[in-house]
């Protein structure tokens, strides 16, 4: 289902024009639009020498990895290659064993080997620039779709409730669920839950949105509706998107850049045409052959 084809979407014919006199902002990210997304200054996400060990198992090996503002990057690779760990470190769900991570110029992690990990004020502030969509949706099951979405804007950003509700309704329409505001997650299909989860992440106006295998937990017939929403986002916002996925064709279609991971390192990085049509590395070739065969 294409979101804008949803009969419940009153948004379809809505002019995108901003209020007179107001600056033109992106409806989804709340960031100014019209200007080139890449501003002077470095990458929006920067991993410097980041390692992650689980006991003897080195999940990430002195990783250096950058993402530019507005870039849509897909991370592919065999399971256990460390690709999900990158997202989890960015979301502060896991800590690196060593290394630095900067987001939008601010420190997220600065860990030396053997440091004791604790949450800092700086980390908490930096974390707000990031949003995440989980494989298992992780909606709050005892709240309606609308309550799920307004929870953080109201209690983290301090937005007033009426404003948060309006915005949540708008976001639900954007993901084609305008008619499902008052449904709770158990009343929604997996695909619908994931779309609510995307709306919930967007409500915080993140600069960087992470997708951790967003369709892996879905029945095959529900994958399309979620991919449609992500595709629309990718095409219509300046938001930086970082996605771990097994949907190779989708990655090829929406990404500015695809990064192949194996054994904790980025093996190859390049535009989707290169990675999928003309991979330079043997390991990329072998991986793609294995996953695209069936």
């Amino acid at each position, binding site marked *: 289902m294409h979101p804008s084809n949803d009969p419940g979407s009153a948004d379809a014919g809505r002019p995108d024009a901003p209020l007179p006199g107001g600056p033109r902002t992106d409806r989804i990210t709340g960031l100014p639009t019209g200007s080139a997304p890449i501003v002077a200054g470095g990458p929006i996400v920067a991993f410097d020498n980041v390692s992650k060990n689980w006991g003897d198992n080195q999940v990430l090996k002195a990783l250096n990895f950058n993402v530019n503002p507005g870039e849509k990057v897909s991370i592919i690779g065999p399971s256990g290659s460390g690709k999900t760990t990158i997202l989890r470190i960015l*979301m*502060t*769900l896991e800590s690196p064993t060593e290394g630095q991570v900067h987001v939008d110029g601010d420190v997220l992690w600065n860990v030396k080997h053997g440091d004791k990990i604790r949450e800092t004020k700086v980390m*908490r502030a930096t*974390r*707000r620039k*990031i*949003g*995440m969509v*989980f494989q*298992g*949706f*992780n*909606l*709050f*099951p*005892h709240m309606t779709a609308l309550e799920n979405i307004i*929870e*953080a804007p109201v*209690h*983290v950003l301090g937005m007033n409730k009426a404003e948060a509700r309006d915005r949540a309704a708008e976001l639900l329409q954007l993901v084609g669920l305008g008619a499902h505001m008052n449904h709770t997650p*158990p009343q929604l299909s997996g695909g619908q839950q994931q779309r609510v989860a995307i709306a*919930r*992440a967007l409500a*915080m106006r993140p600069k960087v949105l992470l997708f951790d295998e967003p369709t892996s937990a879905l029945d095959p017939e529900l994958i399309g509706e979620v991919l449609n929403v992500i595709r629309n986002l990718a095409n219509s916002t300046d938001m930086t998107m970082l996605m771990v996925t097994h949907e190779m064709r989708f990655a090829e279609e929406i990404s500015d850049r695809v990064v192949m991971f194996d054994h904790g390192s980025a093996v190859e990085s390049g535009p989707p045409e290169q990675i999928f049509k003309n991979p330079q590395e043997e390991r990329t070739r072998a991986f793609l052959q294995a996953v695209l065969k069936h």
Partner: protein
Amino acid sequence: MIWDNAFAISIIPMLLKGLWVTIQLTLLGTLIAAVLGLVAAVIRRLNIPVVSPLVSFMVIFIRGTPLLIQAYVAFFVLPIYGISFNAFTTGVVIIGINYSAYMAEVYRSGIQGVSVGQWEAATALSLPTVRTWCRVILPQAVRTVIPMLGNYLIQMFKDSAVLSAITVVELMATAQSIGTSTYRYLEPLTMAGALFLLVSYPASRLVNKLERRYAPKQ
């Protein structure tokens, strides 16, 4: 000893008075236990240095000693050190504290039952810790343990008879005092038992209903 119907009927008002005290003990005790138990479970989970281990120790200590001894100490020993309350208040507080240790374990299982994904979603949304607990974790955790809390309420209802030992005049103590003054134990004790059953049986049925209602949805 032969059952005397007329005598049995004559003591009903006294026994009902005792039953009412028992019900009050149970409801107030459950309230204390439910709140203290929740606080204890959360503190243990927060892993606060010194405080969390102390709470853990208290839970083990309370669970490891009989309610009767705790009640005796509170009622007969503490007054020596200047801490004294009437029998009813002491009884409510002691049984409440005693059960809070068990309820803390129940809450703990409920909190553990909330999926890691819920914590991760709260982190991803930068929800403050207090908000995460109160709005995300506890509503889900408490919901799943409501039937277990109900079972403890029923158990407390029967256990409160122990408090007759510290002179709380509840149902059991009433039956005993009727026995000592009339030398007839058959009727008062039998009827006290029947009254316990009369309340606890429907209560158990109610808990079973709650169990079905709050069973985790698949």
